[in-house]
């Protein structure tokens, strides 16, 4: 990717030549390396250095067109501007996207958090060592079929013809380890773990290996479970998966499009148990992949979504904020139609619980570690879900793995049925969250 000043310069020149007076550009570039291993040998190493930009132009009738391109030299940008200009004549005539009023506001968070990349040989050695430890952890663990260690330098920018120009750069390294077991007369079992941090040196490798091993071993002895209604404990990752799948609840653009379980009148309504509070917080200190501005250049910030069970805010682009007569929240993704999405959830207890629960003493509890196939089993516009999961039935601290089962329900009913939000938060790739206890969910086993 050329440097941003240079790109801004030839974009401006090209726009002038094409008679385009108003435009903006959002772009990103990534330099990444990833490795996979198999039985102590490197399996595949991947490296990539690529860039892309999306340009928006407004024509004299003030309708907008976009084009995205990976060709970011002068000729590529010139062609993208021409194509976007052609598309602009088919742009919407009502609620036309405009520059964010905050595109030039000061960014208060650090825009650079980079770290040097480790040599590929070190990545391979590290992953081989992790694989070796997992294979030694239990005789039943015969392989780690899915594994990967990757490091990424990521930079992004936004600029517009009104003089906005901002950019940021981040580095992060992540590892995933997913094991598989084989035992005579038993079905294969699997489990995995994931960690992310700024650099290879900082990543919790040992914790990742230990979690993957412990989970896998805990699934070796499994049983069918009887279908019925159960009290369920969601792991932080499982709960955040569901929350993300039903994020249309908070999404102002979805609401305007009637593609949401909420309406504009939902604000201020009690949608969950008072025990639950949720924020979206791109700048949370635990968020390694933090973004300081969104696709329209609006600074990101912490937004309370659910406060003691009450729906307290929606997330906005500049356009939805204008239509809701409020401020943009830094959640926009640039496009012909600007979309809105969350960054990083922070889930925590709301009101004090009248009774506390513990997996060490509870009886006949289903502990769901991971829900799967959300793309198929979630009906986001109906509010319903029916999902296979990895988990255990827990009695007085003893966990017995569940062979194969689904959990089903209505997400709004689930939110109301929360009976306990634990205190201790855990970090996941999509947010920070404690374990969440929910009553009366349908489990299908046998």
């Amino acid at each position, binding site marked *: 990717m050329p440097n941003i000043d240079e790109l801004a310069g030839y974009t401006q020149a090209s726009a002038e030549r094409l008679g385009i007076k108003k435009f903006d550009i959002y772009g990103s570039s990534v330099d990444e390396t990833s490795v996979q291993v*198999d039985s102590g*040998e490197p*399996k*595949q190493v*991947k*490296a*990539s*250095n*690529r*860039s*892309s930009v999306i340009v928006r132009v407004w024509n004299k009738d003030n309708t907008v067109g*976009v*084009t*995205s*391109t*990976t*060709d*970011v030299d002068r*000729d590529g940008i010139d062609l993208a501007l021409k*194509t976007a200009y*052609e*598309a602009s004549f*088919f742009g*919407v005539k*009502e609620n036309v996207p405009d520059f964010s009023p905050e595109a030039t506001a000061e960014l208060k968070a650090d825009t650079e958090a980079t770290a040097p990349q480790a040599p590929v040989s070190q990545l391979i050695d590290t992953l081989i060592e992790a694989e070796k430890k997992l294979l030694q952890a239990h005789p039943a663990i015969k*392989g780690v*079929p899915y594994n990967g260690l990757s490091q990424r330098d990521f930079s992004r920018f936004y600029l517009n013809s009104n003089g906005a120009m901002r950019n940021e750069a981040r580095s992060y390294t992540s590892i995933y380890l*997913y094991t*598989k077991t084989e035992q005579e007369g038993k*079905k*294969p*079992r699997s489990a995995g773990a994931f960690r992310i941090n700024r650099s290879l040196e900082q990543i919790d490798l040992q914790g990742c290996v230990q979690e993957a091993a412990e989970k896998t071993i805990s699934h070796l002895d499994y049983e069918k479970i009887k*279908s019925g209604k159960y009290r369920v404990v969601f792991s932080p990752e499982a709960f955040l998966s569901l929350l993300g799948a039903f994020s249309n609840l908070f999404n102002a653009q979805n609401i305007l*499009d*009637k*593609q949401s379980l909420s309406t504009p009148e939902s604000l201020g309504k009690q949608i969950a148990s008072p025990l639950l509070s949720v924020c979206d917080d791109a700048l949370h200190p635990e968020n390694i992949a933090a973004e300081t501005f969104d696709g329209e250049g609006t600074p990101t910030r912490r937004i309370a979504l659910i406060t003691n069970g009450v729906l307290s805010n929606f997330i906005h682009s500049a356009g939805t904020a204008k239509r809701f007569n409020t401020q943009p929240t830094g959640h926009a993704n640039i*496009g*012909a*139609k600007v979309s809105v999405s969350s960054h990083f959830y922070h889930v925590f207890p709301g009101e004090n619980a009248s009774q506390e629960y513990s997996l060490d003493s509870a009886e006949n509890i289903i502990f769901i570690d991971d829900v*799967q*196939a959300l*793309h*198929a*089993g979630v*009906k986001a*516009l*109906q*509010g*319903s879900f*029916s*999902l*296979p999961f990895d988990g255990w039935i827990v009695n007085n601290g003893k966990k017995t793995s569940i062979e*194969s*089962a*689904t*959990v*089903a*329900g209505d997400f709004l009913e689930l939110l109301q049925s929360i009976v306990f939000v634990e205190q201790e938060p855990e970090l996941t790739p999509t947010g920070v969250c404690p374990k969440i206890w929910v009553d009366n969910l*349908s489990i*299908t086993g046998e």
Partner: protein
Amino acid sequence: MTLSMHPSTLLLTRELPNLQYSSTRDRFDETWEAPLSTLLGLGRAAGADFVEFFLERVNYINCLAEDDTITSISPRLSTGAGVRVFRGKADCYVSTNDLSFTGLKAALEKGLSILGLQLPAPNGYVPEINLELLRDYATKKGKESWLAGCSSMREMGEILLDANAQLKQKATHVQSRRAVYFRDWQEVLVAASDGTFARDIRLTQSVGYNLLCADGANRSSISKRVGSTSEPDFLRSWNYQTDAEEVAESAGKMLYADYVESGNYPIIMANEFGGVIFHEACGHLLETTQIERKTTPFADKKGEKIAHESLTAWDEGLSQDAFGTIDMDDEGMPAQRTLLIENGILKNFISDRTGSMRTGHPRTGSGRRQNYTYAAASRMRNTYIAPGNYTNEDLFASIDKGIYCKKMGGGSVGPTGQFNFAVDEAYLIENGKITKPLKGATLIGDAQEIMNKISMCSQDLGLAAGFCGSVSGSVYVTVGQPHIKVDSITVGGR
């Protein structure tokens, strides 16, 4: 007569900076032979056992109509290349946006260095790689005119708005109507150190509806998409009246449906997209990628019975205009027809170059990738269960209480062979008859077990377009089957 080790015309490494290649920017044609041949030779000179370049240009556009307005037309232009380098059975894949000779050379050097290889010294020779005559499927099959023959932005908008107006007429309790279309035009060039040199143009299009209906607390959302390759007129010929009727009828029936009662049932799965059951429960497990990972129970079962004797299944890339049809795969190999299972016996696996090298199963023209940022992997194309001898009436008559899965949603399979898929439109079967609509069903099971429970296949084979996500990204595929009966399967519900 004298013999020398190298012909005098061989390139020396020190001469590389002086090369002036001028490949055309707007087309992958024979002008790319010289630079790619040099780069492949350079890779071999450095000690690589095999080198492959994959070049790609994409001209993509999507269009969205919401209710009575076009709310988005989004073109995307993309160019890039990927270079794959093998040393023994280890491989490295490097991708870049920079298609200049310098850019491609930099990507190659990075790949070589990752594998511990270095370019030869300045006085080292670059061996000549004799590429085959360009195997140009695009020119041979008249594909150059495809892009210009597709619908313009204006026409896209007009057709989608007309289609949405039809849906408004047909459906009741409408909360939102969406008509969605995309066109994906892709030009690819593959050059490899074994002499492969092939070019193709692919044109993939899809259009369909998303309908959301609501009546108080009752909601139903139904989607339908159709897709095609190789057909510039595709959007113009979309029969949206028929699709609007079908979507409206399904949404109406599902709006007041009861939730399915969980348990184990015999089921009948409809044809066309019902084929997702075979795609997930078996097709993925026949990819050599899964053999490499040791995540398939079928790895050593070739020649053995793995399914009910009534089941025969194919994976191929040849069906006219089907969504997964390709003239060549992304490694330059012509597509072919691969018999997977014949009367329950496992006959073949689905293999790409790497899978073939690492597992010994022959390549099947199945090396596919979403784009230049992915290395090719063994992937399905058009995958379907062959028609059987029964009628649909036979299937229904065999069930006292079960579920008719008329419209399937998506699904997935995990590393232990556990699969799942959602049912978008289902009905209760009682005494051989459909009695009432049901919603909220998820089917779960084990691949090995389910394959022996597909006991009856009807005669009405139908194909449907789909998107398949896996290690090399999202690719266009066809799934298909006739109506089939599964003797027993776990249905998750409430």
